């Protein structure tokens, strides 16, 4: 990977992070109704895998979809407006945080019910296998989704019919900080290795460091080639140690927005129980360290950060100024083709 490509990918990851830090801050001010889930700590997987995709590929995501949505190129203002329940949101405020979707991005639907993404992606892959066109379907899901039978049914059917489906299992329970194995938050599943499941269906599988953008990008690119070649589905496990702020249902940004200077020691790492995550796992800081090692000055990263932060300021202002949907909007699309 060229340094410029790596830099572009890292900036996408940083946008994902700054977006969600903004969501948490807005929630703290009472702007976000209901609950929401953030992707912090998993950005490398979403950014790298989605970077390897083609424009006509289809993505199915989960309740933890903000990162995928931004990585695919969503307008942050429309995404933020949706999370705030505004009329200008990408789904007119009907879906909210758990269901960000945009057909223009090939992201038709995000299911908060765990087995949904693998099954629907398998269905999209079924259409692609039939219609052709060098397209693949991608399902992002967490390790917990494999506890639902539907995910295993989807694996079986994709394998039986050699469907072009990339199953991306983001295992954020591995090494979860402060959580005992098998305890919350973590998957409760009877296999030590999640890849034993696709292996049982003779599905090509790989288990990866989920915070290493270069390795992920290469693996996703290889997987897509095999899928286009009609070799059948691919299962990719990406191990992304859970961000400490995700321990409960309500994300907690207890050290504030990440400071890029922590990558080089320009800013000291926070002490305490979170130090290890910042030092070893945070994909933003890890990517920054790799870029600095490749000769990119830290000041260039700060400049990129300043631009992204300014963009997020603008997106936030737009979203907060947007109106809430009018009451008639709720009755608008119960059936396709209905008159309003």
């Amino acid at each position: 990977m060229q340094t410029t490509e790596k830099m572009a990918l890292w900036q996408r990851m940083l946008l994902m992070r700054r977006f969600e830090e903004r969501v948490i801050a807005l929630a703290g001010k009472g702007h976000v109704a209901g609950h929401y889930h953030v992707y912090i700590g998993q950005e490398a997987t979403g950014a790298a895998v989605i970077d390897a995709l083609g424009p006509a590929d289809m993505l199915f995501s989960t309740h933890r979809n903000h990162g995928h949505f931004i990585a695919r190129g969503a307008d942050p203002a429309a995404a933020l407006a949706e999370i705030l329940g505004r009329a200008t949101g990408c789904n007119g405020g009907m879906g909210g945080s758990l269901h960000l979707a945009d057909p223009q991005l090939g992201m038709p639907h995000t299911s908060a019910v765990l087995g949904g993404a693998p099954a629907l992606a398998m269905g999209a892959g079924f259409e692609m296998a039939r219609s052709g066109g060098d397209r693949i379907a991608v399902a992002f899901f967490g390790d917990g989704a494999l506890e639902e039978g539907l995910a295993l049914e989807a694996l079986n059917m994709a394998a039986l019919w050699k469907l072009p489906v990339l199953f991306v299992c983001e295992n954020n329970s591995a090494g979860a900080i402060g959580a005992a194995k098998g305890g919350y938050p973590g998957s409760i599943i009877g296999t030590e290795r999640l890849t034993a499941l696709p292996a049982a269906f003779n599905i090509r599988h790989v288990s990866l460091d989920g915070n290493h953008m270069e390795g992920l990008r290469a693996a996703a690119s290889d997987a897509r080639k095999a899928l286009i070649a009609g070799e059948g589905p691919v299962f990719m496990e990406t191990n992304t140690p859970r961000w400490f702020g995700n321990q409960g249902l309500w994300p907690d940004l207890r050290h504030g927005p990440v400071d890029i200077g922590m990558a080089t020691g320009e800013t000291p790492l926070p002490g305490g129980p979170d130090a290890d995550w910042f030092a070893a796992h945070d994909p933003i800081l890890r990517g920054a360290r790799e870029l600095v090692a490749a000769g990119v000055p830290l000041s260039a990263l700060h400049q990129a950060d300043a631009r992204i932060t300014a963009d997020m300021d603008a997106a936030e202002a737009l979203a907060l100024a947007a109106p809430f949907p009018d009451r008639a909007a709720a009755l608008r699309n119960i059936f396709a083709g209905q008159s309003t």
Partner: protein
Amino acid sequence: MTATQTQVTFREAVIEALAEEMARDRNVLLIGEDVGAAGGVFHQTKGLFDQFGPIRVIDTPISEAGFIGMAVGAAMSGLRPVTEVMFGDFITLGMDLLVNQAAKVHWMSDGQYRVPLVVRTAVGIGAATGPQHAQSFHAWFAHVPGLKVVFPSNPADAKALMKGAIRDDNPVIFFEDRMSYGMRGSVGGADHVLPPGQAAVARPGRDISLIALGQMVPRALDAATRLASAGIEAEVIDLRSLVPLDEGIIAQTVRRTNRALVLDPGCIGFGASAEIAARVQELAFDWLDAPVARMGAAQVPVPFSPALESRVLPDGAAIAARAAAMVTGRQEGEAA
């Protein structure tokens, strides 16, 4: 409507609809268990595999959630799948995909995605198939915003409604009473399409409206014949669709006959009959000369033993007795 020369059975009528729509639109597929070379466990897909092959007629594993999910994903991608759930009772395995995904995608995407999907499923009380192979959950689906629910009672409607369901851009749950599979009748030609949402007057009358669905329609017609010999002219309405519900025809018939007896093949408790009875009162309260009544499946699992199973649904005689009492103002069994 141009009638075909020969009479066909209910099951053949649906096969005709599928074959015509599959020939018309290559995006229409049939997906399910044993729908292919086996031709369906009730022969309800016979011939389609030979005509369209394994690319269009897809046998699946015994994974109802999986293949309904596949169909939803495929429908969002531009195909128009007809998915078959072998017995209506098994549809429970795919509920999440229908209720949380298919029903909500169009709405949740603010109208940006459509799910043109048909789920056909066989139900029916009377074949001694026992408690897990006979119950009809049509009322459950009617409760969910975003799903259409149809339940034809004769070959002509089955064919036309299947074509209408396939051409509809929404998920449609298509109930077939397998006790009607052998029923014969003439059917419309390839251009006769009935969209969901239109009821029909199955028999005109002036004294009482028998508002019926599915298997209750032939029973209502039987009751009407019995009532006629007693001088009571019952009007039989075949709802054909639960969602959308044809409120126009319901209002019209009740305002004319001033009495309504609702007949549902599902369980009475919290069932479709309750909703229809409520609509009757909303639409025609001032025209009613008697309280709205309803009859349907007893609030029990469907027993295996034919001696018990035959008593789950009211027959024509029981319906006639109830209707006569409503018209004459006397209780059943009371001397004239």
